[in-house]
């Protein structure tokens, strides 16, 4: 079908031209909503006039970004990138699952240039399927936490979240200190756990725990089930009943959501159990099908820059770069971690998720 390629590209160009014109209007609106997260920086809101010396000469056109995770942060990063480069950015914001579904639907005619996912195994799978474009010369790559990113530069984890025990402070005065305690009678029917088929981080916790404890690790999850732990949708869906007081605790709750709600004044707090937890990295990757490779590379560079890493920290996430610290949350070095095996985890993700769902049905 080579013959109609130019025609199609012409049409695409026309469509994208029309769209970028109509979307330019939306762009200014985004910056006001980014304030909802409470963390918009002066650079981010001042997107109108890019400073001339910051604009690399070669960049033009647009970037299509599919981003999972907190919208406020994604908006801030996009606005910061726009201000730096003057590029147009089209963003689709959703969960990891929705982004992957959209990519699958677009398989024949891909649209996205860069994806940011909330689950490392999915990025490993993208790499294994040959869908990613390596960018080994990314700026600041060396300062990244090397365990979370690909040595060949297929994906870079620019942020991470840790999983903990999130509890309602009105209902819980003496929070459990270990994962095992959640199976005690005291917490009967009071605990939620996110559904690992919907929450990449919950799956990371479960597979991570199993990769350390082997087959015996299932004891914990069976004890949970016996104690009335309920599997409750994706992360926010599991957290919500704890905020309103219908449940007391989320096991394997995402920490940045808890910090954010706590900062707002909700009766929430989080602890990281003594025996250690799993830190779930959030990888970004350039897609091989990208038609805006230079822009995509510039975006990755921006994502790893001091400025963007500070935005990450402000959003209560763990920065991907080891040299940047957050002041509003527990930093990586203070979180007890399990010695997890990522290779085993991404290999056994599917069967673990379905076995878990089977146990909890």
């Amino acid at each position: 079908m080579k013959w109609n390629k130019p025609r199609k590209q012409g049409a695409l160009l026309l469509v994208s031209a029309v769209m970028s014109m109509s979307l330019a209007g939306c762009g200014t609106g985004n910056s006001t909503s980014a304030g909802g997260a409470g963390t918009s920086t002066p650079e981010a809101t001042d997107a109108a006039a890019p400073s001339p010396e910051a604009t690399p000469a070669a960049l033009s056109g647009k970037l299509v970004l599919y981003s999972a995770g907190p919208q406020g942060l994604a908006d801030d990063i996009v606005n910061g990138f726009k201000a730096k480069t003057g590029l147009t950015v089209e963003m689709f914001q959703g969960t990891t699952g929705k982004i992957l579904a959209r990519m699958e639907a677009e398989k024949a005619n891909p649209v996205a240039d860069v994806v940011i996912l909330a689950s490392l195994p999915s990025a490993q799978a993208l790499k294994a399927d040959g869908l990613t474009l390596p960018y080994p010369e990314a700026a600041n790559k060396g300062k990244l936490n090397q365990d979370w990113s690909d040595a060949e530069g297929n994906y870079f984890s620019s942020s991470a979240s840790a999983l903990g025990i999130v509890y309602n402070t009105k209902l819980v005065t003496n929070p459990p200190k270990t994962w095992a305690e959640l199976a005690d009678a005291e917490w009967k029917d009071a605990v939620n756990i996110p559904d690992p088929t919907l929450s990449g981080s919950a799956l990371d916790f479960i597979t991570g725990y199993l990769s350390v404890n082997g087959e015996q690790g299932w004891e914990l999850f069976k004890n949970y089930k016996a104690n009335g732990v309920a599997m409750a949708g994706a992360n926010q869906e599991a957290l919500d009943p704890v905020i309103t007081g219908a449940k007391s605790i989320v096991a394997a709750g995402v920490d940045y959501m808890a910090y954010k709600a706590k900062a707002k004044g909700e009766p929430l707090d989080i602890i990281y159990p003594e025996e250690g937890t799993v830190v779930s990295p959030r990888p970004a990757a350039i897609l091989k099908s990208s038609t805006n490779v230079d822009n995509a590379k510039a975006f990755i560079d921006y994502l790893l820059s001091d400025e963007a890493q500070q935005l990450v920290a402000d959003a209560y996430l763990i920065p991907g770069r080891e040299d940047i610290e957050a002041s509003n949350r527990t930093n990586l070095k203070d979180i007890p971690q399990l010695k997890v095996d990522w290779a085993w985890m991404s290999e056994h993700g599917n069967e673990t998720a379905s076995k878990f769902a089977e146990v909890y049905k």
Partner: protein
Amino acid sequence: MSPVSMDSNRILRRAGLLLSFFLLAVSIGIPLLLIFWQSVTPDQRLDWMAPLRTITGQSLSGVLLNSVWLGLCVVAGTTLLAMPLAWMMAKTRMGLHRWIDVILLIPFMTPPYIGSMGWILFMQKGGYLQQWLPGAGALSDSFFSFWGMVFIMSMHLFPFLYLLLRDALIRIGGNLEEAGAVHGAQAGYRFRRIIMPLLLSAYGMGVMLVFVKTIAEFGTPATFGRKIGYYVMTSEIHKYISSWPIDFGKATSLASVLLSVCLVIWYMQSAVSRRFTYRLVGGKGQRSKTYSLRGGAGWLAGLYLAALLLLSIGIPYFSIIAASLMKLRGGGLSLDNLTLDHYRELLSWGSVSLKAIGNSLGLSLAAASVAVVLGAGLALAIGRSSSRLQRIIDLLSLLPNTVPGIVMVVGLILLWNAPWMPFTLYNTYGMVVLTYVVLFLPYTVQYVKSSFSQINGLLFQAAQVSGAGPFYILRRILLPLIMPGMLAGWMMTFTISVRELVGSLLILPPSMQTSATYIFAQFEQGQVSLGMAMAVVSVGLTVLLLLGIELLNSRRKWTGS
């Protein structure tokens, strides 16, 4: 009428049929075929047995039975709720209160997952009910069960059945019943032997649509069903299509099972309706018999309506509005925990949320208008579905309602984003309108068909004999008679597209939001109050718009007669 114009008439009709078939094949048939193709070509190789293996390998019989049982129970529930109401609104003076119709559309305009959230917030442990009545714990325990789910879904879907039944009852008119009474039939006998058979065709259609809507519904199973551990086909399909690992093959195989169930129901319904369709709208004038409800009966009817409104709108909207006003979600119901900040943020000029509302309204107006023109054309082409082509068109036009929305949408993406298409509609505004039109076409088709099938053909023959041309007939006889159906279809399409979520999530161009995706995103981001405020605003706007239309419409009637 000269033979020449008879021929041109027939050619016109034939061309219309072919055009309808072509349009439906492109917009509905091919996308579904592409989906089917995906399900039989896992790993790029043709494998006809793949769907069968998926179904037998997944212990799915339980889930399928869950879906069907839920569908049957909701059909029973909606019937119990809608039947008395339809009778009251068609046969008594209560029918004069036209605003009730618009108010009753509110449950239907509420996104199902928002409605369920409202009930959950109200009934859960520590929920609004228990904050008032701490002793209500037992009630809330029994609510979180299968029957609670049936209750919520019936409350959501009954307006749909009600509208169909009421229109049918109005068309039956009073003279047939009077004739029965003159011959000495008692009220019960008249209902059994006159009203029921005449109502059966409309009821059958309503039952089918309610059943299909129930088993294709995703919002309530995803929010309420997951809480009580009741899994149905749509939740399984959604799992394969939106969580890692994505498997369209499995999802489409499951979708084809769901589709077959729906086709069986469709076949049964069409058999019933072929047998029990009567031409009720003839040339003679109609008087409808109006019962006056006085004393006890009037009180009872009023109480019934009030209870219905309280349960279908009052309680869920109490929760939704309360949640939208809360400073801290953990703070509970108290005056010092209330704030209007979320509305201020939502409606601030130039905000993303305001743009989302604008997008929703614009897209829905466009989609409803296209759908009503297309749908009316199709309904007329289908006519009395006498020829095979007409039956095929009928089936095709109904398919989007029987396939879960998400499957239809994936099919549309596969087609409109295919590399071999000369132009890609995907990622444009037009794609969204197309998707809404395709998804909601069945409503207009069904509504117009149901008005059309009751028009007596003698009317057109009478016009022809009197020398009217086809366009004159169309303008002065056909259009006025099917107009109520078209209006109902337009309103239905508009209200549902405003809240359409599943398709929008997948097809909206990046950086574009509608009110539904905005709500969903706020829930995902933990800003539940902002999401609930958006639900209140967008449903409120829709209600105002529909009330306005209703007002204009009734004024037109006054001046016209």
